[in-house]
């Protein structure tokens, strides 16, 4: 989300707060790491209470982009962040990290059972960089935890022709059926994407 559309959702005090935060982030982008904890990073933590939790993802990712946060900074913000901050780091990865260096953060998030983190972890960055085994498990994790498969970026392309994924989905469906439980509708959607359903 860009600055204009965020501003439309904020009151005047929050807009002024965000002005200041973005100016501090831009300053840090020009002169990286000249203080122990840059002021914009304190604002990154406090964004929810100043701009509303419903705007926190948008404000935090904007701050990360304005500060041009590198992998080292993103990793520290993730590791030292509350769940909402970790989520924002994950959402910002595709814009800030071209290579696979930030994959450990995605893998960490996929080990949690916190659906806010799992959902943020399966975006375009995961689609571009997760290896096939980890990506298949990420898809399965979404089915297990109730994260909509619509959150999985580029699912059609990655699933297409993936016979191993199709097998895993079919096994999961059998396990559910054997237990007398329903099979999630999303499972069929992904199975169709593989083009391997039998």
């Amino acid at each position, binding site marked *: 989300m860009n600055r204009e559309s965020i501003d439309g959702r904020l009151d005047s005090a929050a807009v002024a707060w965000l002005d200041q935060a973005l100016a501090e982030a831009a300053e840090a982008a020009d002169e990286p790491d000249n203080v122990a904890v840059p002021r914009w990073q304190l604002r990154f*933590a406090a964004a*929810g*209470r100043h701009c509303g939790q419903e705007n926190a993802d948008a404000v935090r990712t904007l701050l990360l982009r304005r500060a041009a946060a590198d992998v080292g900074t993103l990793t520290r913000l993730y590791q030292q962040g509350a769940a909402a901050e970790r989520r924002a780091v994950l959402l910002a990865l595709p814009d800030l990290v071209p290579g696979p260096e930030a994959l450990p953060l995605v893998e960490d998030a996929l080990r949690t059972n916190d*659906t806010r983190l799992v959902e943020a972890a399966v975006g375009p960055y995961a689609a571009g960089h997760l290896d096939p085994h980890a990506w298949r498990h990420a898809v399965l994790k979404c089915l297990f*935890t*109730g994260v909509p498969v619509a959150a999985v970026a580029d699912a059609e392309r990655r699933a297409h022709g993936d016979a191993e994924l199709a097998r895993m989905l079919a096994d999961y469906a059998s396990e*559910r059926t054997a237990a007398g*439980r*329903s099979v999630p509708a999303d499972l069929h959607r992904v199975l169709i994407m593989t083009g391997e359903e039998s």
Partner: protein
Amino acid sequence: MRIFDPHIHMTSRTTDDYQAMYASGVRALVEPSFWLGQPRTSPASFFDYFDALLGWEPFRAAQYGIAHHCTLALNPKEANDPRCTPVLEELPRYLVKDGVVAVGEIGYDSMTPAEDVALATQLQLAAEYALPAMVHTPHRDKLAGLRRTIDVVAESNLDPEHVLLDHLNETTVKVAADSGSWLGFSIYPDTKMDEDRMVSVLRSHGTDRVLVNSAADWGKSDPLKTRKVGDAMLAAGFSEDDVDKVLWRNPVAFYGLSGRLQLDVPAPEALHEGNSILRGGE
């Protein structure tokens, strides 16, 4: 009856407790960081605990329609272990988090010099980070410990009106009230206070600045004690408005001093069929 439990250790409780609490009217709670029963030996295990209070536990609570906030601190007991005191240096980066509504639990356990330092340092941090402080009064030598706590608060930069003195009882309520601080009472099955004694204190002292909590944890305790106090108050002739003041408005006013309370958690959805989101099916 809407209930805000201002002191409960949910990491020690099950999802059945969350469900029963919601059914009893609990819609918000504060989980103070404290001792875990087993002493910790390094700052890293505190940080994992703090992260859980800012991550997994609020997620779990939200599944049951309950707003979860926390207070963070180096607790009095472990402030005596030099392996743990480096936690104090890392606390500032945690105190800026959205989910943190006070510094706590701080206070005295055995009234040692190390506890003096930790208490004074953390009251100062509360003042610096514009947070109130949640102060535990000791189980042993309680009245003397309370007086010493009040003296340390008076010497600090933190306003007594931004301090909650917890685990009070009949013998300590007057001294605590005279200090100008908020008054916390923990209701337990056997120890601390019970609901009928709580009603007597409310009769003689009034409802101003009084907070009631279950302080439920891994010991013998009951996460529904807040509701039982509400019921006992009504049975004793207190009005619904009195109950709402003690069980909701007072804790909201105290922790609201942080400017960080977010009480609008949506009602719980039915769990994913046959596959609890809470365990991720694992």
